[in-house]
């Protein structure tokens, strides 16, 4: 099971390394969104610093939508999705592999974007441990919920428009939790960051289990 998940994750990540869609398109998009936030907030450095955690996570969620869509588009491009079904790999492994690959991409995105926030919005990090843990847990949560919904809309012609509508309300708690944890880590607001980390981890665990067990039923196209 883990061998197969590893195989799928390796394949997805290798494709992303090769195609550089993430690096050449998704990351620049995310940075652009950060810049737009700065324009929208009227170059008010104080406001930017205060709202940096929230702006950071909204940007991550928007970019995650693209990464999730991309992960499934690669399989659908030339019939590989059917071959995956025919390969006999356990759907739980496919789910695990795809979610892991998306999570890794999100972590890379977070690191790059985090640097962007530090540079552009002038924030300072007070608690590195919390920052790293919250970043990882949030990435896992978004990746598991995203993989579940990505599979749900994968076969549909309207998937690009449907995925945001379905996924964003579901990952709203991640936004709340991760924002609070980062506020604590950046020292811009007194929040109980570690408690919020618990919420993020719980979210990832719930959607990991739920996704793993419903993935097979969702992929089983008629």
């Amino acid at each position, binding site marked *: 099971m883990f061998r197969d998940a590893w195989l799928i994750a390796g394949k997805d990540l290798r494709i992303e390394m*090769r195609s550089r869609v993430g690096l050449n398109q998704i990351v620049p998009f995310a940075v652009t969104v950060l810049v737009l936030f700065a324009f929208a907030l009227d170059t008010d450095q104080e406001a930017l610093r205060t709202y940096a955690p929230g702006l950071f996570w909204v940007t991550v969620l928007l970019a995650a939508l693209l990464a999730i869509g991309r992960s499934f588009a690669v399989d659908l491009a030339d019939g*590989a999705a*059917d071959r*995956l079904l*025919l390969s006999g790999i356990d759907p739980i492994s496919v789910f695990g592999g795809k979610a892991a690959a998306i999570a890794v991409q999100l972590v890379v995105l977070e690191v790059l974007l985090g640097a962007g926030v530090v540079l552009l919005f002038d924030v300072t990090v007070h608690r590195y441990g919390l920052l790293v843990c919250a970043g990882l847990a949030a990435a896992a949560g978004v990746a598991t919920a995203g993989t579940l919904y990505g599979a749900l809309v994968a076969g549909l012609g309207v998937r690009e428009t449907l995925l945001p509508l379905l996924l964003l309300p579901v990952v709203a708690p991640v936004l709340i939790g991760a924002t609070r944890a980062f506020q604590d880590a950046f020292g811009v607001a007194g929040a109980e960051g570690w408690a919020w980390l618990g919420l993020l981890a719980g979210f990832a665990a719930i959607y990991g289990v739920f996704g793993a067990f419903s993935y097979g039923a969702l992929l089983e196209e008629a």
Partner: protein
Amino acid sequence: MESAVRLRAAVTLLGRFPALAGVDLDITPGEIVLLKGPNGAGKTTLLRLCAGLCSLSTGQGWVLGHDLNSERRMVRRRVALLGHRTGLYDDLTVTENVSFWARAAGADSIDVDEAMERLSLTGRLADTRVARLSAGQRRRASIASLVVRRPELWLLDEPHAGLDQQTRDTVDALVRGAAAAGATVVLATHELERIAVLEPRVVSVVGGVVRADDDPADSESPDPSSEAEDDRRVS
């Protein structure tokens, strides 16, 4: 002896369209079956049904002894379906694609080398990204990634369509090889004369049902009445 494929009043709906409208079909192991019929007759759906990718709306079916209503996952891992799409990843090289599908099917790296050799995907071609291949080379890479699975039932959907001479010969060799190895082959193709030398059993698919099986002896001169119907459908 157990049938390779056994369908009874099989109906498959694609949305509300009955692609298959009550198919009865028996294929014995080791047989080569040629599906003949006009476009839109249901050949592709029939092949996908046999692969376990489409579901039965009503009726019953067994492939390699597994029930199509309840054991589709068992069916899937024992068959190979070569469709219009190649099932390859554009950004990976030929070798990476073939080994990925080989490992997904639990095959060894020796199988990969052998399959690549058989489909003459050697040398520089092996390390070329699939996106840069010609249509024929893609098809060969696609076949290689199916060969490694050692399927018991080959389902080939228009395997000759739009290919160069070398690849067409490769496809013929594949069918011969599979048959020689005792696998069952079901293929849909318009290139009847290429396959005729293999003396397949010809099955006509028209309007989502299977017509009374033609006599194998007639295979080289297709039934004139159904040809007339083909023309009507196309025009």
